[in-house]
């Protein structure tokens, strides 16, 4: 990967971090409501994985989906508007944080039902195979989803049909409060792949370049018609499960320990030490991301809301 591309990944990671931190502030200020699930700490997974895709490839996302959305090229203005429930949002303010889709960019949507997008990703991959379009589907899901029935049925089906799908399990160590140590009787979720006869690979989910390399290989395999791969990206969510989480199930020490492995700091270190990038250059990229988020907030705040009459017309296709 050349430096230009690396700097783009760095920018995307910052954009996600800024988006999330700003969304949290807006929530505190009462401008974003409901609940949402912050991706802070997991940026390397979405950014590294999506970098291995072509623009026309597809992704499916989760309830913690802002990062996937941004990494697949979404417009943060429309995302912020969605979080504020505005008509200019990706889903006209009807979906909110948990249900953002960006079909033009190949993001087939986020879901609030854990595990439910895995069969949908498999269906999209089946469609790609039938359409012979050469596209690949990258399916994001969490460690919690790996224990749903939907996971088992869908992964098996993708394996037997050799579908062009990459299963990206973001193991952030907790399904809400339930630790992966208690949720699995195996060491690595990637081991599950054996049971379906597909490759299973563990990635350091806080290392954007490692996620990129491993995903790239899986995407190439899928594109060649060799079938799915299960990747387990080990990472950590710095924040609680959602806005109502008091974090009683994990220690401050554990959170601090993982914050030392902040994927953005790790990547910065790589850029400064290995690539000898001028610190001033990184500063400029940071400012650019901040500015883009500021503009997104201004855009969202200035936007209108949908009327109930307009909403009614959207229940059925005409």
């Amino acid at each position, binding site marked *: 990967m050349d430096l230009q591309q690396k700097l783009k990944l760095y920018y995307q990671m910052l954009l996600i971090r800024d988006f999330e931190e700003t969304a949290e502030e807006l929530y505190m200020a009462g401008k974003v409501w409901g609940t949402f699930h912050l991706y802070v700490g997991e940026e390397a997974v979405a950014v590294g994985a999506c970098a291995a895709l072509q623009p026309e490839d597809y992704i499916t996302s989760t309830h913690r989906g802002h990062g996937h959305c941004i990494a697949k090229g979404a417009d943060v203005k429309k995302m912020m508007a969605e979080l504020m429930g505005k008509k200019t949002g990706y*889903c006209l303010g009807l979906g909110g944080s948990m249900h953002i889709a960006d079909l033009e960019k190949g993001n087939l949507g986020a879901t609030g039902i854990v595990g439910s997008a895995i069969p949908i990703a498999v269906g999209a991959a089946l469609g790609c195979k039938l359409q012979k379009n050469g596209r690949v589907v990258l399916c994001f899901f969490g460690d919690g989803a790996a224990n749903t029935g939907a996971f088992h049925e869908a992964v098996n089906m993708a394996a037997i049909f050799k579908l062009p799908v990459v299963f990206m399990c973001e193991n952030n160590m907790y399904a809400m409060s339930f630790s992966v140590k208690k949720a699995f009787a195996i060491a690595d979720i990637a081991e599950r792949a054996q049971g379906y006869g597909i490759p299973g690979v563990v990635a350091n989910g806080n290392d954007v370049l490692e996620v990129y390399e491993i995903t790239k290989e899986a995407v190439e395999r899928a594109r060649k018609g060799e079938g799915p791969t299960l990747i387990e990206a080990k990472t950590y969510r710095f924040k609680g499960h959602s806005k109502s989480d008091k974090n009683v199930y994990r220690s401050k020490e554990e959170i601090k320990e993982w914050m030392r492995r902040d994927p953005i700091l790790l990547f910065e270190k790589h850029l400064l030490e290995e690539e000898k990038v001028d610190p001033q250059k990184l500063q400029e990229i940071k400012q650019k991301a901040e500015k883009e988020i500021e503009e997104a907030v201004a855009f969202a705040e200035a936007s209108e809301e949908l009327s109930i009459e307009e909403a009614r017309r959207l229940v059925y296709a005409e």
Partner: protein
Amino acid sequence: MPNRIITYAEALREAMREEMRNDASVFLIGEDIGIYGGAFGVTQGLIEEFGPERVIDTPISEVAIVGAAVGASLIGMRPVAEIMFFDFMTICSDQLVNQAAKIRFMFGGKARVPIVVRSPAGSGTGAAGHHSGSLESWFAHVPGLKVVAPATPYDAKGLLKSSIRDDNPVVFVEHKLLYRTKGPVPEEEYLVPIGKAEIKREGKDVSLIAYSIMTMRSLEAAEILAKEGIEAEVVDIRSLRPLDEETILQSVKKTNRAVVIYEPPRFGGFGAEVVSLITEKAFDYLDAPVERLGGEEMPPPYNPHLERELVPQVEDIVETVKRMLE
């Protein structure tokens, strides 16, 4: 001694605590119900008293949660399963609808499935399409299931205790917006029977027939109407199935007018069942067509203003009654 005032969530917790103390076969199973205390804090503190063997935290596996409850109940246990959001009931519907509800009948009445499946329902928290569902009409349609939906802390506690002691599968509907509401709950033991409606407010001009949060909105509407000289009677259905036909019919025969108020989409919903009951058995008493106030026929929208318009509000009830009485 005056009654204590506690929240709906505390009342539910007390019901589970008392039944677990009284009966070793009662246990809890669900996602994040242990140290986290449940997504809405209902099971807080129970793991400390009863330990992880009786307050069982599970992976995200709704089919297995309800299936495990069914299996355990077949060999004499009384599980209380928590499904984190009512929308997630669709995932475990096979175990609930095809297994729990049918087992007793299909096995010639020889098996019992004494499970309770508790779940937070309803809109109003901005959680959008996947976390705001009101699917109670669906489950009321299934022979073999009982469906209850209490409105007050008193009923929540009494009905949950009755549900745990019941030998049938019970779907226990808890509205999210009710968890923090408060009301009197006696210290001493009591039960609220399943299958009994209650007149929550006496009146003579119109019957407002509702359950869960719509009972509370109907009571508010009745207060407003009273200031204008209209006396509304509020009938709290409490149990959708079995349904207390008698209390509903007696109220309508007294007031001669009825509005049925419920949160799920109006079309094909539970309200139609109540309207049908009234027209079949109290038609001659009616001075006006029975009105139905149900939810909009759309998935719950995220935008707060649209979400509010989704379901009947106090002002909708007031307007409907005034129009009927014009």
